[in-house]
């Protein structure tokens, strides 16, 4: 997969990597069992501190997105939720609230907001080639 770092986004570099891997797994660009590039070549290629990549991979492991096998590398895990349903919903609500705040400041009304959400859900579902229950 193709990582892109944007120093003007204001988001810590390691979090940009975390989000890009999460996006790629959610949209089916990375599938369960697929390997992520190892730390050193990726750090060299992006010309990013080696520790930044290591921190991103540790975070992805904590989130249950990837697993690291010593001597073998890091692999995408099958989407098995690590948290209970109420916790998962709470985590998602935080993100949704943030999107609502942004929508408010951009003057996006309720129906446009909802239809955009629908549109994105369809988009990811199509990319993934399977339906989410």
């Amino acid at each position, binding site marked *: 997969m193709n990582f892109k*770092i944007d*120093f*003007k*986004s*204001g*988001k*810590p*570099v*390691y979090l940009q990597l975390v989000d890009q891997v999460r996006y790629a797994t959610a949209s089916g660009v990375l599938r369960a069992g697929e390997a992520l590039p190892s*730390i*050193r*070549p990726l*750090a*060299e290629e*992006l*010309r*990013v*501190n*080696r*520790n*930044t990549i*290591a921190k991103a991979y540790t975070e992805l492991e904590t989130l249950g997105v990837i697993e690291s096998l010593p001597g073998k590398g890091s692999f995408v895990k099958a989407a098995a939720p690590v948290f209970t349903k109420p916790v998962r919903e709470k985590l998602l609500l935080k993100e949704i609230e943030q999107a609502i705040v942004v929508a408010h*400041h951009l003057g996006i009304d309720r129906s446009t907001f909802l239809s955009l959400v629908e549109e994105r859900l369809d988009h990811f579902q199509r990319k993934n080639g399977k339906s989410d229950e």
Partner: protein
Amino acid sequence: MKEPPKPVIHVEKLVRRFGHLDAVNGLNLTVRPGRCHGFFGRNGAGKTTTIKCLLNLLRPTAGRIEVFGLAPQQHDVAIKARIAYVPDAVAFYPWMTVSGTLEYLASFRTHWNRDIEADLLKRFQLDPNQKASNLSKGQRTQLALIGAICPEPELLLLDEPTSGLDPIVRREFIETVIGAYQSGDPENRTVFVSTHLITEFEGLIDEFTIIEQGREVLAMDADRARSRFQKIRARFRGVPPALELEGALSVRTTGRELEVLADGSAERVTAQLSSASPESLESESLTLEEIFIASPTLSRAVLS
């Protein structure tokens, strides 16, 4: 609570005078282990003088220096055994070959990684039998970098290492510092780099100190600095309204556009601007280079 690890470099109120010139004038500096610390300053700000004091090549006029918790003047060899240094202009004995030069450098070291030496010679396509006098500036820097990385030092001091080199050599230089050096034992590989070419080192640097007239003006974590300092641009249909913007460090008006520098208050500033219904409204973080250029303004905000 675990005690924070001892800093690799600790400088307090360092002063170094040359006659009537205060090259370094009360500098404080702390570099933690395993980090890559950028040292930014204009020409004559005191960067090289500071580094020479760290290396015990210059005696401080006043102040305290500790490298690995030791004073450079009393523990010259003990410190030098654990560090490597690449200056901006490297010179070798002209009659020595590439491999002869590396042999010579290795003879001063208790540890020398032959595998890294072979890898890097191949990567840089350096001919071991070439005379040092026939090397280009780029090749001399590459040779100096090999000489600095093979002993696998705990601290790598780089003083304007890539100035005057072509873009390909500069890129390889940074990749090598990340790959061959940092990956060895990440917890104990500290980089201290003084540079003007901030953009090229942006991804490598995780904390920085900006020095001006021999004194630090801003020392921060790179991610934190980028999320804290934002530039917000709003374009209006007519002349921008006169707004009393809370949380703005500076406001510049050019034509119909308003450019605001915000310090950790980008959302507040954006909300205030959007209530004045601009045509367009954008915000982005300052890069490290932009932070360096704006540092006189920013440091006032941080200190106040």
